[in-house]
C-alpha cells in the first residue's frame, strides 16, 4: 500500500501512536511524531512510498520527532530528533520539524551504511548512465539535480551517492530534493508541475523547501546504476559556460574530501573510489543557464 492511499486521520493516529513505517530507498524507516510540519509534510512528499507493517517488516531506523520537554513547549517551541530514543543533534525550532526529519534521516543513512562508500553528491541516471554531482553546499548540485529530474532523468539521490564496495554500482535512495533560497523559485518556474512542501525560513541553510521525487524514480529504487561521469557543478550568473576535464588524481582528491565515511572504510574506501574513477572521468562545469548545463551533460552522456 502507498502512503497516498492512507486516509489522513488514520495516518495522524499512527504517527502519534505506534509509528508509521515507510520503505525509503530500501531502508525501513518508522516515524513517530505529532508535530504539524511533519504530519503535513509526509503525505505530501512521501505519497508514493510503500507503507509497511511493523509485525511483518524489520525496522532499520526508529525515529521520533517531538518537543524535548513540557516546559520549553511554552517558552520557545522546539523539536527534537530521536533515533532509537537517543538524540544525535540539538533540537530545532518547531517550524523546521519536517526539514529536521530529512536531515536526521540523511544522518542515519550516511552513518550506518558502511557496505558503501557514501559520497556527498546528487546522482541522476538515464539509459543506464549515472551522473554523480559531488559538491559543497551552495555549489548548486541539488538545483541542477532537480532540473534534470524535471526533464525525466531518474533520481537516485540529491544528497548521497552510495557506491557498493562489492559491485561498484550506485544504490539509489530517492528522497525529496532539498532546495535552498532562490533555487526554490527557479525550479518552480522551470517546471510548473513540480510539487513542493512548505518552505521554511531562517534555517541554518536559509530558506529550505523540498521537492517531491517522481513516482517512477521511487518505483525503481531497487535498481542500482553504473556511474558514468563525475561532474562538479558550479552555478555562476552571467558567466560563460566553462567545462574542464580533471585528472584522475584531482578527481580522486575532490571526491574523497566529499565523502561521509572514507575514514571508516580505510583501504576498502580507497579501492572503491579508485575502481569508480576507472570508469567515471571527472569534469568541472561552470554554468549560467540550465540550457548550457544540459548541453554539456548530454555531450558527456554520449561519450564512451
Amino acid at each position, binding site marked *: 500500500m502507498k502512503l497516498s492511499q492512507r486516509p489522513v486521520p488514520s495516518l495522524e493516529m499512527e504517527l502519534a501512536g505506534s509509528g508509521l513505517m515507510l520503505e525509503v530507498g530500501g531502508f525501513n524507516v518508522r516515524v513517530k511524531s505529532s508535530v504539524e510540519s511533519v504530519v503535513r509534510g509526509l503525505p505530501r512528499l512521501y505519497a508514493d512510498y510503500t507503507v509497511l507493517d511493523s509485525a511483518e517488516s524489520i525496522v532499520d531506523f526508529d525515529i521520533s520527532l517531538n518537543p524535548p520537554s513540557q516546559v520549553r513547549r511554552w517558552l520557545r517551541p522546539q523539536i527534537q530528533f530521536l533515533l532509537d*530514543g537517543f538524540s544525535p543533534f540539538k533540537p530545532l525550532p518547531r517550524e523546521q520539524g519536517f526539514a529536521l526529519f530529512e536531515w536526521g534521516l540523511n544522518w542515519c543513512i550516511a552513518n550506518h551504511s558502511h557496505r558503501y562508500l557514501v559520497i556527498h553528491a546528487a546522482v541522476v541516471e538515464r539509459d543506464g548512465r549515472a551522473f554523480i554531482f559531488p559538491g559543497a553546499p551552495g555549489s548548486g548540485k541539488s538545483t541542477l539535480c532537480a532540473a534534470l529530474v524535471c526533464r525525466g532523468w531518474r533520481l537516485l539521490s540529491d544528497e548521497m551517492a552510495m557506491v557498493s564496495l562489492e559491485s561498484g554500482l550506485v544504490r539509489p535512495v530517492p528522497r525529496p530534493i532539498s532546495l535552498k533560497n532562490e533555487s526554490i523559485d527557479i525550479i518552480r518556474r522551470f517546471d510548473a508541475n513540480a510539487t513542493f512542501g512548505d518552505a521554511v525560513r531562517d534555517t541554518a541553510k536559509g530558506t529550505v523547501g523540498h521537492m517531491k521525487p517522481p513516482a517512477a524514480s521511487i518505483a525503481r529504487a531497487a535498481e542500482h546504476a553504473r556511474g558514468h561521469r563525475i561532474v562538479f557543478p558550479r552555478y555562476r550568473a552571467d558567466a560563460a559556460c566553462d567545462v574542464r576535464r580533471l585528472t584522475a588524481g584531482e578527481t580522486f582528491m575532490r571526491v574523497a574530501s566529499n565523502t561521509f565515511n572514507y575514514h571508516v572504510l580505510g583501504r576498502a574506501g580507497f579501492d572503491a573510489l579508485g575502481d569508480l574513477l576507472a570508469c567515471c572521468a571527472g569534469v568541472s562545469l561552470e554554468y549560467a543557464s540550465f540550457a548550457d548545463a544540459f548541453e554539456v551533460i548530454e555531450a558527456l552522456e554520449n561519450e564512451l
Partner: protein
Amino acid sequence: MSFEYWRQHPLIGFIRAPEVALGTFGPLQWSCLIGTARRANLMSRLASTAAASGQDDALPARVVEHFASARRVAQAARTATFREARQIVAALEPAGVPVVFLKGAAYILAGLEAGNGRLLGDVDILVPRDQIAAAERALVAAGWMTTKIDNYDQRYYRQWMHELPPMRHLDRGTNLDVHHSILPPTARLKPDPALLWDTISHPAEALGAGVLSDVDLVLHSATHLFHEGEFDNGLRDLVDLHVLLVEFGGAGEDAFWLRLLARARQLDLLRPLYYALRFSCALFDTPIPGAVLSESAAKGPDSTTARLMDAVLLACLTSSIAPARGPGLGLALLAAFVRSHYLRMPTRLLVPHLARKLVVPERG
C-alpha cells in the same frame, strides 16, 4: 524490572544464545535488537557473536546489512587502536616508563575474543605510580594535552584520583586516560597496584606494550563497571566480562576460576567480582562453576543489601536500552552514582565534593 524481564529482551537473549534467537525471533524482535544494539554500542559485538556461533548464514538480510556495516566501524576502531598504541609506546619508552593497556584497547591488542567488534571512545593505560609525573611530561611532549577542565577538577583528579585528568592529542584528537591504580587511593577497597605489574604479559602483537594477566583483566573490568558509577556503556562492559569469562574459563579451565578467586582475595576485589559473576551469569548464563558462584556470594553483601543492589544495578546496567527513562531509573542511576563516590572516598571528602557537583553546573 526483574532479571526474568531482561532475560527475555532480544538483545540479551541474542548474546546468551544466538542459535535460540534465530529459531524464535520475528520482525518485532529483530527490530528491537537493531535499535537497542545501536544504542548500547553493541552492534559489532553481536556481529562477532553471530560469527563465532556459526549462525551468520541464517540471519535475516536486513540484520546482515547492519552487522556488516558495524564490522567496518569496529575494524576502523581496531586500526586506530594499534596506531594509537604505537604512538603511546613510542612516547613513553624513551622516558623509561613501562605501560600497560587496559579495557577495550587491551582486549584488541591482546587478540582476545572480547576485542572482536569492540568499539572504544578512549584509550586507557596504566603506568607505575612513582612514574606518573614522568609519564605526563613525556606524553605532553608528544602532543597529548590535558583537556580543558577547571582548577577544582584539576586538583580533584591530582589529589584524590587514580588517574590524571583526561588527555587529548592535539593533532589526532584521540582521547587518553592515564591511570596509576585501578581505584582511587582513598577507596574503601585497597588493591595494591604494584601486584598488577608482577603478572603482566607482553603479547607479540601488542607492540611491546603490556596487558594485565587474564584474572586481572577480569577483576579490573569488574571493578571499573561496579565501582565507577557511570553506566552509559554499562551493558557493553558487562558483555565484555561475559565474553572474557567464556574465553578464559571454558571447559577444562578449572584452574582459571581458582586463580581468579585467589587473586580477588589478594587484591581486595572480592566484592566487585561477586557483582560481575552474579550479573553476567543471571543475564547471559555464563558457564561459571557453581562452587565459584557460591564462594563469591559468601563474600557478597548481606541478603537485604543484595536484593537492593540487584534492583539498583540491574536498572543501571540496562539503562541504555530501557524503553523509557522513568523516575525509578533516574533514582537508580543517582543511587549508583552516590554509591560509587561513597566507595571511592571517605565521607569528609565526599560531602563537600558532591555538594559542589550539585551546585556548580557541569560545563560543556
